[in-house]
Every structure is written in C-alpha cells, then in structure tokens.
C-alpha cells in the first residue's frame, strides 16, 4: 500500500474528511499535506476535517505537519477542524509544544461535521 493510500480522503458535503492511519510513517504524513492542499484548490471545499482518532503515536514531525497544514489551509481560505485526538496524543502534543493557533478541535468526526454544517448555515444566512 502506498503512503497516499494509507490515508482515507472523503469529500463530505463542503468539507474534506481526512482519516489518518494509526501509526503513519513520514511519507504518509507528507502525503497528508499534499492531498489536503490539492483538494483545497481543486475541489473547492470549505475546509478540512482531520480525523486523528486512530492515531496512537505523535512525533514532532507529524505534529509540525498538522500545525503547518492547518496554517496553509487557512491561507487558502479554509478552516481545519481536528477530530478525535486521544488523551495520550494530546499530552504528547503539549509536551512537544505544538501550537494549533485558531484550529478548532472536537471530540469526534460527528462533532466536526456538525460544526462544519453550522458554519455553512451561518454563511448562507449572511448572504
């Protein structure tokens, strides 16, 4: 299985749902960023839901890539929602000094899609 195939990328309504495998290697992590940004420009999605619920181990490279990807998606006008981070991963993230800036975090993909749906509704009502 190639690195890119290990990541599941599904378009759900206006967002891209990206599910990371449990123990991604460096090339898988690199593929995450590429596929997310490609989809942002090609598929005109409003943002990215990054599902980390399977991830058990976080290293500094992975953490940095997640933070950077969120920033890049932001520059392209989208929003990143991180879903399902496990307690152990969250503790590692604080130890690594990860800063997620304005990136939203939610407990489950369900919550993430709810949130994305609400944002869309807000946008429509503004128009």
């Amino acid at each position, binding site marked *: 299985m190639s690195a890119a195939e290990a990541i599941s990328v599904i378009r759900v309504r206006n967002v891209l749902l990206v599910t990371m495998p449990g123990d991604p290697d460096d090339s898988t992590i690199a593929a995450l960023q590429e596929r997310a940004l490609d989809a942002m420009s090609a598929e005109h999605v409003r943002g990215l839901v990054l599902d980390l619920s399977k991830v058990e181990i976080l290293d500094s490279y992975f953490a940095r890539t997640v933070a950077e990807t969120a920033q890049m998606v932001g520059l392209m006008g989208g929003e990143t929602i991180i879903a399902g981070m496990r307690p152990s991963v969250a503790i590692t*993230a604080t130890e690594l000094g990860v800063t997620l800036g304005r990136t939203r975090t939610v407990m489950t993909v369900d919550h993430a899609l709810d949130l994305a749906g609400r944002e869309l509704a807000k946008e429509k009502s503004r128009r």
Partner: protein
Amino acid sequence: MTLQIETQHGKRRENEHKLTPEASQELLQILVDNIKEYAILTLDPNGRVTTWTPAAERLEGYRAEEVIGKHFSIFYTKEDFEGGKCEQELEVAAREGRFEDEGWRVRKDGSRFWANVMITALRDSNGTLKGFGKVARDMTDRKQADERLRQQNRDVLEMATVPVVQVWEGILLVPLIGTLDSARTQQLMERLLQRLTETGSQVALVDITGVPTIDTQTAQHLIETIKAVRYIGADVVLTGVRPVIAQTLVHLGVDLSSATTRASLAGGLRVALDLLDLHVGAVVRDGRMLVQ
C-alpha cells in the same frame, strides 16, 4: 506405642514416650505426605531434587519419577532462572542456614503461582552440607487479595488527589483542594483527559478555590492541561480564582488569557452551560414554578 504412666523411674518414663527411629521416621513420612498446603521436598547440595511428596506433586504438577534428579530451577520462571536466582537462594541458605522468599514459580503445565518458599540447609552432626529442605506454599489467593486491596487503595487515593465528578451531562467538575505539585497536576491532566473522553463531556470545570497558592510552575502545568483538553476537543473553565490568586498570577506574569477563568464555580457553571447551549431558567407549568 505403649505409655506407662505409673513408673518408679523418671528416666524410663521418658524413654517410653520416645519412638523407635523407624516408627518416628514413619510418622514423619505420614505427616509430610498428608500435609496438603505445603509442598515439602529435599534437594542435594547441587540443587537436584532428592525426595518428593504428594503435596509437591499437587502444587508443582510433576510426579516423583519425573522430577527426582532434576535441578530445582525447573520450578522457576525463565527470568528468575536467567537472573541466577536459584544458585543465589542455595548460597544464602548454605551460608545463613535458611532462605525465605515470596515470588512467582512455574508449574509443569507452565502456569504460574505465587509461592512462599523456605529453603533450609541440612547439615549432619559434623556440619557437612548434605542438601536442602524446601517448603513451598501456594499463596496465589492471598497475593490476589492483596493486589485487589492495593488497587482499591490506589483508586481511593487517586480519587482524593484528583476528584473528577460529572455535574451535568457534558460537564465534569474537578474540585482541587490543597497544594498542586507537578506530580498532582500531571495526574490531573491524565485523569481529566481520560474521564472527558470516557464520558464524552465537552466542558471541564477546574475549581481552584481550595488551592492556597499558585507558583509559576503550577500555572504552567495548568496551562498545559488546558491546552491538552482543547486538543481532544473539549474546553476548560478555570473557576475559583480568588483575589490573591489573581494578584499572584499577574505578578508572576502568567498569561492565562487563552483560558476562560471565573471567580466562582457558579460563574463557571454558567459559562459551561452557555458553551453547551443549555439554558437554565424557571418555567411555569400547571401553575407551579419549575427550574429547567
């Protein structure tokens, strides 16, 4: 055996109580064979099994013909064997007369039991080492009971150190009382994250009313906890920030602006309810006031 109670000679009476060596040997053998809880066996000076008993067979699973002549290391775990535990035990027993130990031992079928083991050096009247006597007892039940008790104690202690209470669906309360050191804040972080994910709660009220003082390090730990809680998709409201704590935090230059903080638990609860889009208010139903 005959007991002569009435006798003229005290010496003779004493002798009457004594058994012939054969008879006493036989009685001892019956005793050794019938003791159920204790596996009694003997080893030669090199640690090879020389005698075996039914109780030893029950405990260890080997029959006499399988085990006589084998080195007693077969009763030990691989780790203990490799660590040289068997030799060490005989050494101590030879030097000090006896050796006592509790630990895991292995049965013939590979299963483990927790044993209390006593090894006694057997020396003849000249002091020559003839071998060792070994008495082993299965203490697995007691060990398990001890473990359970210890776990209960740990649970109680943990609950007392970092109590986490669900006060509403989606809201956990952590009332902290007493000084916060690094170990305790670390425990707080782990337990809080665990309980938040378990209960699917989205807001944690961390109440520090009962915390006498806060230093830079404690504040840093709290900030990290708040961050970690954010990462898993929940929020922390820090409540019970008394005037003296507020002053200390500002003087220390601790930046808590990223966290929601409130002076009272009541204020924090209001924030939590707002975050969850819950509303508390009085409604009138059937002419009666109800709190919703």
